[in-house]
């Protein structure tokens, strides 16, 4: 576990104007019971404002990944409701929703038989030339995105994922998630399965990138991690989950000052 000096906790944007728009993402009493009877989510309420970064924190089995996956309808809750920009998610076409929602998972999930450039273009290809993504524009976009994550297209565009390091693959996954300019980006342990050094380096670089995106372009990010330090460094608010329940939501400061729950307090003690 990485120790977090308090100076590294990012300043919250208390100066930011309170948003009165609909939440970008909202869970209302969301429950998920798997066919085998286990409860992955129990009546979770969480509203994520546009332009906010929220970290879902908890140990494995806490339901954080399941909650994340309800936001792009990879999981359909068995109770409650997911709303996306104020609209019930069930009214949205899941394929369309996913194409307009960024997604980065552990170990990247790149298509191993596609080149780096083609992987970055994945969503643009799915959207198709008909909605403004002809081949030249796609390639141009891939170049921009790869530039952004520090992998020049000329050098890396033609390589296959197996020819990259773990960190480089993860960078490509970020470039892919951003390519279609989605408003919401879902990150499932994006720095998991990397060695500690690469992890820190990637977190610092891409973290800065995200902050930039978030502040400049108003992107909404949801980050799943089991690393409280990472959550504190990257997120505006941290949601602590355990056994399918949402225990506590607050800014890093709020959580540090007033854990409000024994488990959260214990977690903070171990993590900080």
């Amino acid at each position, binding site marked *: 576990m990485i120790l977090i000096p308090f100076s590294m906790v990012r300043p919250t944007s208390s100066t930011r104007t309170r948003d009165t728009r609909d939440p970008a993402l909202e869970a209302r009493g969301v429950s998920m019971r798997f066919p085998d009877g286990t409860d992955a989510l129990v009546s979770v309420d969480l509203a994520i404002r546009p332009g906010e970064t929220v970290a879902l924190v908890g140990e494995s089995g806490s339901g954080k990944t399941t909650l994340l*996956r309800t936001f*792009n309808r*990879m999981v359909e809750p068995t109770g409650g409701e997911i709303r996306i920009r104020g609209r019930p998610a069930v009214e949205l076409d899941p*394929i*369309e*929703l*996913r*194409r*307009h929602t960024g*997604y980065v*998972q*552990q*170990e*990247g*999930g*790149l*298509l*191993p*038989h*596609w*080149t780096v450039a083609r992987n970055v273009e*994945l*969503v643009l290809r*799915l959207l198709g030339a008909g909605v403004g993504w002809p081949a030249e524009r796609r390639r141009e976009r891939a170049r921009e995105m790869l530039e952004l994550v520090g992998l020049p297209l000329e050098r890396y565009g033609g390589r*296959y*994922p*197996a*020819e990259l390091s773990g960190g480089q693959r993860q960078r490509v*996954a970020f470039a*892919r*998630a951003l390519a279609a300019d989605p408003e919401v980006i*879902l990150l499932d342990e994006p720095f998991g399965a990397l060695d500690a050094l690469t992890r820190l380096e990637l977190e610092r670089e891409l973290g800065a990138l995200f902050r930039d995106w978030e502040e400049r372009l108003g992107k909404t990010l949801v980050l799943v991690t089991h690393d409280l330090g990472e959550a504190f460094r990257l997120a505006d608010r941290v949601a602590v989950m355990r056994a399918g329940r949402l225990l506590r939501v607050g800014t890093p400061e709020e959580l540090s000052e007033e854990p409000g729950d024994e488990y959260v307090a214990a977690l903070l003690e171990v993590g900080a």
Partner: protein
Amino acid sequence: MKGRASILLSLGVLALGLVCAAATAHAQDPIVVGSKNFEESRLLAEMFAQLIEERTGLPVERRLNLAGTQVCFEALRTGAIDLYPEYTGTGLASILGEAPSGDAAATLARVRRVFLERWDLHWLAPLGFENAYELAVPRELAHREGLATISDLVRVAPHLDAAFGYEFAERPDGLPGLRQTYGLSFASVRRMQQALKYRAAAAGEAQVLDVYTTDGRLLTYDLVVLDDDRSFFPPYAAAPLVRGATLARHPQVAAALSLLAGALDEEGMRRLNLRLQEAGEEPAAVARDALAELGLVGRATEIAPETGKKESFAGYLWGRRARIGRHTLEHLALSGAGLALGALLAIPLGLALERRRRLAELVIRTVGVTQTVPSLALLAFMIPLLGVGRAPAIAALWIYSLFPMLRNTYTGVANADARAVESATALGMTPLQVLAKVRLPLAAPVIMAGVRTSAVLTVGTATLAAFIGAGGLGDPIVTGLQLADTRMILSGAVPAALLAIGVDLALAGVERLVAPRGVG
């Protein structure tokens, strides 16, 4: 990548399908002559075929070497063949299942009436000789024990080893009836091919064998035929057995075959059979000579190729190159058609099952059962449905080819890189896109490996297709087994093995082509 795998796969399937279509296309309505898988039956069928060709000008197709009475008769009944040489006693005992009784004339009258009533099948005029089952013992043993009749044999039989043909051991007019009538029992009964029985007897490993009256080997092996003193064996007069429909359409066929009525005798048949059995001559050549001797056709203008056994194996193969080439093409067409049809079902089914995983296990296991059915049995099952020849053989090969391709297709697509599948779905690919753009290309090498396994299996199994008259490299193997002619067996087995290796190598090349770059 761009679906290269799927394009290549479908092209391959298409090409194989074309080969199949070309191979199964029929010439216009030929007379199909069948025969069982022993020399005399092949010889008579060849004589019938040549006589019909010579006298009627009708095109004739030969389906020789069908595996035994049951297969031949089913083929005739279902119209897969138009005629074949049969024996009245076999018709009575094996086909009708009636107890042998009466003399030759009564037996003929009985089978004529029943075959006509039940199946509209016609026994034409007998050829003039009988080819009965008989029991034979080495001359030395007969002398020592004073054996002249089967009744004499009963006393010493418990100390003797018997070697009987497969059919004889089962037929009611064979061993089972013989046991009942005479109360015979042997120290041991081994079942083996006709030619091998004689060798076993010569080597002293068997003392009693079933023989045919007209078996040419009776002229060369020192055996004594025992008298059937209780008249157990029915009369086995040889005659053409023809479909009524064929005679109605082509009455000239009956006219041509009537030229052979009463034209042959036992002694003559023994000599003709011997040429096939010991000299290894071709039925076509011997049949030509026999018909010429009867003045029914002109002498063969070409001299039959010398098939003396002294030439080298390479020379032997060279001498048979045209035939081996033809058999190889037949073989490729059979296996290719079976495999292509198999791929057309197995691969799409495997892909579809990926979306029905709970059903998949059941379906794959069920298809797996086909692998446990012996190939020959599967071929035999096809006869009542599809007759004899290429169609049932292709159907059987098709069934055989399914399992490896189905299993590999399903396993390949179901186990494709889980994270790639997950992210492709999460970024908005439809299930069909995930299948076509992610699962299928990633699974292509596994699927091709299944196709390879099926291909080798199919090429191997296709050698059995000769048993139901489909030709191919099994033809010289089956004939060679009958004649105990190792070189003839090898002339089918060696090309078949080479073919399997070649097909495997070729498909290994395709497997490398379809393997997506960046993987493995």
